[in-house]
């Protein structure tokens, strides 16, 4: 999934000025950036600050990413670095000391790697789910399910588990 051609296509389109492609990237990876921010226990204000910096940095870097497929990794590393900057600035001015445990400050690459993998999988699942939901909606309208009898019932039962 790390070489997702879809991500490469989105990055290429966005660096060509396509706002829709950019929006899709923000939708797809917003959760990754957000999750990392919450791991650093930042306030909402700081989360907003970090989020803005990360996306603005990406805007500047878009055309320069050597491997567009590595975007999730770039986002995760940049977010972690920005969070650390905010945390360090806070402890400097308010001398909060070490209220964050070392495991957060020195999150090793394996943790970040795992988060990227989960984010990638989640993004793929959400895209697939949205497609499935659209197909289902079309099927419902076309009466095909009614003709199949119990089909719809089964789908509804499992769909209900997801709150769909």
């Amino acid at each position, binding site marked *: 999934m790390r070489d997702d051609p879809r991500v490469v296509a989105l990055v290429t389109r966005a660096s060509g*000025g396509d706002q829709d492609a950019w929006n899709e990237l923000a939708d797809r990876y*917003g959760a990754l950036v*957000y999750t990392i921010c919450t791991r650093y226990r930042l306030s909402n204000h700081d989360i907003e600050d970090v989020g803005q910096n990360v996306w603005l940095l990406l805007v500047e870097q*878009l055309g320069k990413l050597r491997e567009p497929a590595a975007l999730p990794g770039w986002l995760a590393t940049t977010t972690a670095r920005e969070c650390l900057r905010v945390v360090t600035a806070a402890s400097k001015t308010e001398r909060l000391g070490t209220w964050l445990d070392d495991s957060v400050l020195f999150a090793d690459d394996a943790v970040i790697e795992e988060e990227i993998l989960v984010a990638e*999988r989640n993004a793929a*699942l959400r895209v697939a*789910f949205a497609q499935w939901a659209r197909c289902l909606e079309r099927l419902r309208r076309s009466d095909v399910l009614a003709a199949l009898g119990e089909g719809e019932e089964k789908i509804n039962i499992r769909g209900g*588990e997801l709150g769909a």
Partner: protein
Amino acid sequence: MRDWDDDRLLAALGQALKDREAVPSWFIETGKSAFAWHNIDAELAQLTYDSHQDQHAVAMLRSETASIRALTFTSAHMSLELEVTGNSLLGQLLPPRAGELEAHTRTGGISTTEVDEIGCFSVDPIPDSPFRLRCRTADGTDVLTGWITI
């Protein structure tokens, strides 16, 4: 994921949807609106001096620091010297020349001021959220600073 059974797939899917729901919509919107900065053809000026950073070192020694915040941004063709005075930001272009200065906030707000012939300008009031300055002069120099929080 190929050999996942339905239950495992549904659990993963449920988690994926829940993770996405946990992200506030304003956070995603912030990401989307950053695209307004795409393809701005200006030279980036780096922060080369910030009195605020030096101040941390001395703050513990002197309790009353009547400090004036001063910042310098430098690019290959121009530098901007900034000084906070009351509620306004006074600036000087070096080398001095006339032009136009824009203060951009993250929400997309832009306020424009003139830079006089000796390179002086003032931004009044100072934006209360992070902003960056873009300066264009008659000779075609176009410079953009990093984000500033006063």
